[in-house]
């Protein structure tokens, strides 16, 4: 019983803990294995979300690729990755060794390519992929990316396409990752739900710009980049809150929310749970403090003990008083 207080559920997937890696910030098996504390980290995780995978390899954007801001990080990586085939061959089998559910983050340039990529992955993964996270929200690629995520009709088509690509008889969790670069996040959220997504994850990075006052020109070749880290926590929290409050499927946890954005301490995790997230992803904080998952798990356990409660009971609890 003791161990179960950290458990949570996303769709049909039971998670040992509500702590997930955030796409693009967790590397893959090789990077995790490089850490002396890799075992403890894997034990603190509920699932592993991979970095963004595309059908073909992508080289990513020119340098510079990251700029630190006050309490945050602007990145313009541009989804550098080895492509689906090498991911399947080199990364997936190693990730599988950690005995964690593996959720693959997928990106593409067209509605059709999302479906093609999903079908390709699921046909060649030897059953090792637990879920797909559809990234319709990357601000750093010219095509697709955010432009997709803000148009509810496109979101709906992308999600439908990916759902249809799941082979019959296989239970694959479909998560849709939403962008915060929009006035009302519930609009694309509802579109994704209408298309049958099993869960929502939010938020991806917030668009931002940095200008070098010495050269008097923008730092990034693409001018704008994506902001992450502690700076965006209130934004992510607000969007989780809105979806939980305004979308009945989220409120009933039929379509659970995975909270993302600036989560750096166990207190942040509790806040997101209270706002309505069923699980969370941690990105930037992991760079700053590689022990973060281990420490979060400890902190969370103590909080649950002190308050005699469980993760499941905390989800959306803060809404109780303001419905």
């Amino acid at each position: 019983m003791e161990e179960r207080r950290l458990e949570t559920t996303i769709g049909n997937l039971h998670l040992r803990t509500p702590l997930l890696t955030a796409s693009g910030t967790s590397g893959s098996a090789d990077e995790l294995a490089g850490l002396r504390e890799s075992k403890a980290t894997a034990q603190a995780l509920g699932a592993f979300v991979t970095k963004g995978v595309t059908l073909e390899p992508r080289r990513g954007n020119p340098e510079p690729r990251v700029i630190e801001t006050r309490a945050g990080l602007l990145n313009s990586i541009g989804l550098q990755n080895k492509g689906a085939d090498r991911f399947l061959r080199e990364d997936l089998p190693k990730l599988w060794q950690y005995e964690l559910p593996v959720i693959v983050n997928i990106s593409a340039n067209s509605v059709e390519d999302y479906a093609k990529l999903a079908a390709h992955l699921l046909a060649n993964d030897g059953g090792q992929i637990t879920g797909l996270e559809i990234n319709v929200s990357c601000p750093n690629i010219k095509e697709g990316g955010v432009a997709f995520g803000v148009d509810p009709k496109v979101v709906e088509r992308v999600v439908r396409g990916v759902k249809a690509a799941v082979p019959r008889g296989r239970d694959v969790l479909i998560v849709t990752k939403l962008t915060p670069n929009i006035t009302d996040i519930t609009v694309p959220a509802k579109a994704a739900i209408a298309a049958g997504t099993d869960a929502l994850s939010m938020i991806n990075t917030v668009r931002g710009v940095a200008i070098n006052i010495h050269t008097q020109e923008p730092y990034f070749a693409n001018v704008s980049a994506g902001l992450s880290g502690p700076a965006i926590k209130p934004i992510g929290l607000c969007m989780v809150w809105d979806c939980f409050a305004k979308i009945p499927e989220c409120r009933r946890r039929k379509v659970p929310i995975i909270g993302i954005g600036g989560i750096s301490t166990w207190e942040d995790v509790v806040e997101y749970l209270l706002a309505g997230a069923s699980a969370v992803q941690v990105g930037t904080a992991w760079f700053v403090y590689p022990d973060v998952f281990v420490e979060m798990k400890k902190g969370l356990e103590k909080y649950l003990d002190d308050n005699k409660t469980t993760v499941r009971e905390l989800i959306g609890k803060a809404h109780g008083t303001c419905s």
Partner: protein
Amino acid sequence: MLPIQIKNLLDRDGWTLRDATARHRGRRLEFFFTSRPTRAVTAALRRIQRADRNRFQTIGVVIAPTTAAMQRLRSCANADKFPRALFASLEELRAVAAGTIPVKSDKRGGITSFKAEILENTPVGGAQISHYRLAFKAPSLQNMQPPQFIMMDTKPARVPFGVRPVPRGQLRGAIDLTPQPLLKRPFGICRDFHPHFPIDYVKRLRLPPTLAVALYPVLPDHFDMLYKVLPHGVGTPLIAKLKRGQTVNMLGPLGRPFDVRRLRAEGVEEVHIIGGGVGMAPLILLVESLRYYGFRVKAFLGIATLQSLRYRDELAATFGEQPRDAYIYIDDLLAAGVPPEDVYVSCDSGKPARIGRGIPPANLFAGFVTDLYRRETHRSTGKTCAFTCGPNRMMELVVEITAQAGIPLRVLLEKRMGCGMGVCFSCVCKVRLADGADDYARVCTDGPLFDAKDILWKNDDSKQPSATCTCAPRS
């Protein structure tokens, strides 16, 4: 009795072995066999250390049956049980006797986050301070090997974000408005210190060259880095404020290690080190390792002014020596075992005044280090290779010079880093792959050392990395 293999190895170097003692022109190695610390060995080693003082004429060598056992004995936690001993394993000695040179793989691993205790944070350069020397203690980093690096926080551990402790009634100072950098900063390690070994032990140590590739000192627990406070930087000015006794969160060891014994296998005899300013810092540990294994090292240092390198070396006191006036880089190179006649210095601002220390005046030069190096390339003896680190423009010139002279070159790259662990793809540099295509490699996991011929220097779609960040309004 020592196995015949060791005797054969020593023979090749002209040493004679009787019982458990090898001799050569007044130098002695005394061998001990053990797989764990024992009182008798400790007492014997202590006697040797006391009689020899720091002349390194007589050295104890502890031989463990297996390499794994040797690694356990070498741990810096055991340093007092094996005072000033070198270590070897029978396994490796046999392999060396059979003609193989042990070379560690360049795989990364064992990255850990740890707390380092600051021992010293000394300004360098008199009136216009821009360099600092930071010494810290971190047994967790003992397995670090050149040219691996660390990433460190810019604030002491446990100071909560933005709030600092203040005396009662002085709340105005409670909120720290200085910018709070989120990310750690990457730095190379300049020197490491082995308990019981004085800072310049490599200079005094003269090991039989054939045997040396299988002898190891105790693992280090003190480390030194040299860093430059950037004029518009946010992190380095904060690092400069760290005080002795404070602890700082660090991450390491990062990057791929480079085992210099690999060069022995390649037949290299002479190694050129070309360092531009603070770029010399991370190369010095490599130099120490090269000298330990008996390579000839010529070091070419480019600096702005000699004055900017002066500082008061307090660390000498840790080894029972008087604090003294020293020059960073120059004294580090000499301590790492480079003979003075192989140290070359060029100053942009004019020919440096006499440095002393036995460095011949002909080795001092006015102008850029690349011009100095160009002059000296043809004077190499035997098979040569080179290492460089410094400003981009300098490195590009060194690439040209070495290419013309037919000297293989490796470069140490510094890039903006996010994580240091290979997960964020922010530290990339363009490289040519074996199949001719180009790709972005990560400096933190594929580097920091690269073969110069793999790097695409003219990288048109990249902006020059700038020294400033957007963190902060500056006063």
